[in-house]
C-alpha cells in the first residue's frame, strides 16, 4: 500500500489558497470528532452549524443561511458550561465576520473561488448514488478485508446495504469512471458481499445514538423510504413510530421483489437493526382508516409526520373482458405470494407489460409450475424498460416474449379466461412527437392461448390516503424535493408516493433527506435550496497496483444458480462474489475520490514538458478515448511535473528502493531505476530524465555538456576547484 499524502489538519492542501468556508468545516468537524464538546447541547449546535456551513460550501445555501450560522455561533459562544464550545463559537463568528464576502460568494455563485471546496468533491459513483454513499471508501475497505468498517461507511447514508447489494438499480455503476476504460466496478455486488460477511461475523452494528430528545415523529409506511427516515431520526434521538397497513415491514422490497432476488431474511435482518434503535412498528394499521392524523396528533402527541405510502394502486388495461373475467394485477399476485399464498395462477399464463414487474411476475409463475408463461409487450425488445439481465434470465428460465403486441380483449367463458385477443403493432412517428409510438396494424388480429392474464402496466399512488395533501398532475404527493416538506407544515413525504413507481435507493435517499428536513424543521434551521452533495466519509490510502495488473483484471461474472433449480424453487439466483473477486474489484477501482480528472497532469506533461506521456483518455465524460495505463511508461521520463501540479495529490512521485515510482491513486504508471551521483551517491533521477535534461540544454543552444553521472552539488564543488564553467541541471517547473 502507498501512503497517499493527506490534507493538513484544516482539510486544505497547503499548496493551494485556503478557503475560510472549508476551514470552518474542518474546524467544526475536528471539534465534533475530538470529543471536547462533551455536552450534548453544544455538540448538537456545532453539528447544526457544520451542516449549514456544508450547505454553503456546496452551493446549497439560501439567504437565510448566514444569519442562522451567526445566531447558532452566538449561542455556542455564550455556552454557560464549556470553554471549548465558547472558543469554537467565537472562532466561527470571527471567521464569518472576517470573510463574510467569501461566504456570500459561495451562496451567490454556488462556487468556491479557491477550488478548496471542490477538491474535496465526491467521486462520480458517490455523486450518482441517490443515497450519496461514499463508494470509493467502502470499496477500498472491502478490498482491505475491513468489512465491518465498510458497512459502517455505507450505513452513514443507507441503512440497507444488504438489500441494495442485491436489488439496487445501481446508478453508481453507470457513472463509474472505470466503465470508460473497460467495465464499471461491481459496486452493488461488493456491497452485498460486505453485508453478508459483516452479519455472519457479527460485526454489523448500529452507530451510537443521540440521547432521546423527547420529540415524537410518526411515519406512515414501512417500506424503504419510511424505514430509512425512521433510522436517521432514531439516531438523532427522536421517538419514532412506523404505522404499516400490512402485517410486516419491507414495503415493495418484500411484497413486490420476489424471494429469488431478495431473500426475506435479508430484509428481516436489516429491519431488526432499526428495532434495536427503539423504532416502534404498528402493523396491520391503515392510516386514514384505523387511525387518523388528528388522533395521532392530539391523543398521542406526534408533532411531525412522514408519509411514505409508496404507489400501491395499479392501472387497468381498460379493454373488454377485463372486468368480466378474473384476471390478476401483477403486484397483487406478487404481494400474495410474498405473504404466503403460493398457488399456481393458471397453466398457460399471459403477462401484459414490459417492465421489471412483468418480468418478476413471469419468473415467479415459472417457479410456481405454470406450463407456459408469455410476456406480451406493445413495443419492441429495444424499448423494453426492464433490465437487460432480468430479461435474459427470464428467457433462460423459459419465459416467452411477444413483442409489438397490443391487447384488444380478454376472451372467456363461464367467468374463466380462454384466450387473449391481440393485434400486431408497428412503431410509427406521430406528428409533434420525437418518439415512435406503437400503432396497431389493421387486420393483424390474433388470439393467444392462455387461461390466466396478469397485468403489469404500472402503479399509481393511492389518492384516498391523506387527500388533504396537495397532489401533482401525476397524482403523486407534491413536495419540495430538497427538504421533502409538503404543503402542510410538519408533514413530509418521499419515495414512490412522491416520484411515482421508482427504485429502492431513491426511496432511501428521499427518506434520509426527509429525516434531515424534519430535524431542521424541529430546530428552526433553514432548509437547503439545492439537493444534497454527498459527504465524503474518509480519505483512505490507495491500494498499490502495477499498471499491467490494473489493466488485466476483469470485472467478475456473477455466478448463478443452475437453471433447473431456478425453474422449480425460489432460491436466490445470484450466488454472490467470493473474497478473491471482491479484493480484485477493489484493485480495479480508480479512486476517483482522489483523482478528480481535472487534467492538469495531462496538460503539464504535454504542453509544458512537451512529452505527452499521459494518455488518460478516460478523463473525458462525453468522448472517452481508450486508455492503457501500461503505455504511459513508454514516454514518461519520471520528471514528476505532473505530480507537482496535481491539486489533490492523486499523482505522486516517490523514490523508493533504488527506483523512481510514478503512481496515480496507487496505480504504478512508471518505475525506473535511479541514477546516483558517482561522487557523493545523491539521487540524480532516472536515466531517461537525465537524457531529457541533456537534450533540453543542447536544444537551447548551449555547447556545454551536462555530466550525467555527477550531481549539481559535486559539479559546483569541482568547478570551484578547477575554475571551469559548468551548467547545472535545469529545474523542472510546472
Amino acid at each position, binding site marked *: 500500500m502507498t501512503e497517499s499524502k493527506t490534507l493538513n489538519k484544516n482539510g486544505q492542501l497547503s499548496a493551494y489558497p485556503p478557503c475560510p468556508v472549508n476551514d470552518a468545516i474542518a474546524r467544526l468537524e475536528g471539534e465534533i470528532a475530538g470529543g471536547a464538546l462533551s455536552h450534548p447541547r453544544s455538540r448538537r449546535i456545532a453539528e447544526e452549524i457544520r451542516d449549514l456551513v456544508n450547505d454553503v460550501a456546496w452551493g446549497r445555501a439560501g439567504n437565510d443561511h448566514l444569519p442562522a450560522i451567526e445566531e447558532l455561533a452566538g449561542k455556542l459562544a455564550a455556552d454557560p458550561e464549556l470553554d471549548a464550545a465558547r472558543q469554537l463559537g467565537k472562532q466561527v463568528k470571527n471567521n464569518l465576520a472576517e470573510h463574510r464576502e467569501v461566504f456570500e460568494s459561495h451562496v451567490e455563485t*454556488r462556487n468556491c473561488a479557491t477550488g478548496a471546496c471542490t477538491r474535496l*468533491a465526491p467521486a*462520480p459513483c458517490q*455523486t*450518482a*448514488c*441517490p443515497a*450519496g454513499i461514499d463508494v470509493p471508501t467502502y470499496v477500498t475497505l472491502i478490498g482491505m478485508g475491513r468489512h465491518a468498517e465498510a458497512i459502517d461507511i455505507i450505513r452513514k447514508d443507507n441503512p440497507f446495504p444488504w438489500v441494495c447489494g442485491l436489488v439496487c*438499480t*445501481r*446508478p453508481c455503476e*453507470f*457513472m463509474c469512471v472505470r466503465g470508460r476504460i473497460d467495465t464499471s466496478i461491481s459496486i452493488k455486488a461488493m456491497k452485498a458481499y460486505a453485508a453478508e460477511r459483516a452479519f455472519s461475523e457479527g460485526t454489523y452494528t448500529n452507530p451510537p445514538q443521540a440521547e432521546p430528545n423527547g420529540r415524537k415523529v410518526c411515519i406512515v409506511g414501512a417500506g424503504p423510504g419510511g424505514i430509512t427516515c425512521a433510522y436517521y431520526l432514531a439516531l438523532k434521538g427522536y421517538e419514532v413510530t412506523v404505522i404499516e397497513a400490512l402485517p410486516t415491514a419491507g414495503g415493495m422490497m418484500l411484497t413486490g421483489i420476489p424471494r429469488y432476488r431478495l431473500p426475506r431474511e435479508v430484509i428481516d435482518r436489516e429491519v431488526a437493526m432499526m428495532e434495536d434503535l427503539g423504532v416502534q412498528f404498528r402493523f396491520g394499521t391503515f392510516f386514514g382508516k384505523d387511525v387518523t392524523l388528528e388522533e395521532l396528533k392530539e391523543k398521542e402527541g406526534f408533532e411531525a409526520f412522514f408519509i411514505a405510502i409508496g404507489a400501491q394502486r395499479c*392501472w387497468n388495461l381498460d379493454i373488454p373482458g377485463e372486468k368480466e373475467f378474473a384476471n390478476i394485477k401483477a403486484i397483487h399476485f406478487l404481494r400474495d405470494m410474498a405473504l404466503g399464498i403460493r398457488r399456481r395462477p393458471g397453466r398457460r399464463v399471459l403477462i401484459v*407489460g*414490459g*417492465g*421489471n*414487474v412483468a418480468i418478476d411476475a413471469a419468473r415467479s409463475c415459472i417457479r410456481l409450475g405454470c406450463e407456459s408463461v408469455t410476456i406480451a409487450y406493445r*413495443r*419492441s425488445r*429495444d*424499448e423494453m*424498460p*426492464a*433490465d*437487460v439481465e432480468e430479461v435474459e434470465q427470464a428467457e433462460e428460465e423459459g419465459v416467452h416474449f411477444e413483442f409489438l403486441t397490443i391487447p384488444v380483449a380478454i376472451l372467456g367463458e363461464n367467468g374463466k379466461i380462454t384466450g387473449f385477443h391481440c393485434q400486431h403493432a408497428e*412503431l410509427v*412517428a406521430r406528428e409533434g*412527437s*420525437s*418518439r*415512435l409510438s406503437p400503432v396497431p396494424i389493421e387486420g393483424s388480429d390474433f388470439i393467444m392461448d392462455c387461461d390466466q392474464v396478469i397485468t*403489469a*402496466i*404500472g*402503479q399509481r399512488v393511492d389518492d384516498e390516503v391523506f387527500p388533504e395533501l396537495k397532489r*401533482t*398532475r*401525476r397524482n403523486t404527493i*407534491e413536495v*419540495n*424535493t*430538497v427538504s421533502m416538506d409538503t404543503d402542510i407544515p410538519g408533514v413530509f413525504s418521499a419515495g414512490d408516493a412522491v*416520484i*411515482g*413507481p*421508482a*427504485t429502492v435507493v*431513491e426511496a432511501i435517499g428521499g427518506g434520509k433527506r426527509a429525516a434531515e428536513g424534519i430535524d431542521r424543521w424541529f430546530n428552526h434551521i433553514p432548509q437547503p*435550496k*439545492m*439537493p*444534497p*452533495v*454527498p459527504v465524503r466519509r474518509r480519505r483512505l490510502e490507495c491500494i498499490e497496483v502495477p499498471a499491467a495488473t490494473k489493466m488485466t483484471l476483469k470485472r467478475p461474472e456473477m455466478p448463478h444458480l443452475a437453471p433447473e433449480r431456478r425453474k422449480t424453487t425460489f432460491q436466490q439466483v445470484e450466488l454472490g462474489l467470493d473474497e478473491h473477486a471482491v479484493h480484485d474489484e477493489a484493485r480495479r477501482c480508480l479512486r476517483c475520490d482522489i483523482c478528480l480528472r481535472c487534467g492538469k497532469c495531462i496538460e503539464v506533461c504535454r504542453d509544458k514538458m512537451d512529452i505527452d506521456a499521459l494518455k488518460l483518455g478516460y478523463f473525458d*465524460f*462525453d468522448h472517452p478515448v481508450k486508455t492503457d495505463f501500461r503505455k504511459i511508461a513508454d514516454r514518461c521520463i519520471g520528471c514528476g511535473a505532473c505530480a507537482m501540479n496535481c491539486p489533490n495529490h492523486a499523482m505522486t512521485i516517490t523514490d523508493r528502493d533504488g527506483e523512481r515510482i510514478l503512481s496515480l491513486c496507487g496505480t504504478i504508471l512508471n518505475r525506473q531505476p535511479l541514477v546516483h551521483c558517482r561522487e557523493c551517491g545523491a539521487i540524480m533521477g532516472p536515466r531517461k530524465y537525465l537524457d531529457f535534461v541533456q537534450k533540453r540544454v543542447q536544444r537551447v543552444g548551449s555547447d556545454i555538456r551536462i555530466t550525467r553521472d555527477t550531481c549539481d552539488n559535486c559539479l559546483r564543488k569541482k568547478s570551484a576547484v578547477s575554475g571551469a564553467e559548468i551548467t547545472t541541471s535545469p529545474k523542472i517547473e510546472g
Partner: protein
Amino acid sequence: MTTTFRRGQHVEVFQKSSDESWEPYMDHFIGLHGIIVDPDTSINDPSALVEVSLEGKGTHRLPQDSLRALE
C-alpha cells in the same frame, strides 16, 4: 427519431421543462450531460419522470421533455 429513453443512454438537459415537477434549482442543470439510469420501469409513458445521473450533479428524476439523447 427516438422511441423512448434507454438505460445507459447519454443525454443532455437541453431545456427547462414546463412540467410542474421542474423546480427552480433544476435551472442549474441546463447544459449538463448525464446518463439515463432508470428510464421508467413499468410503461413507456412520455410524461413519466425518468431518473438521470448528471455529471457532477447527482441523480435526479427529470421530465423527459427537458432531455435529449446525445447518441
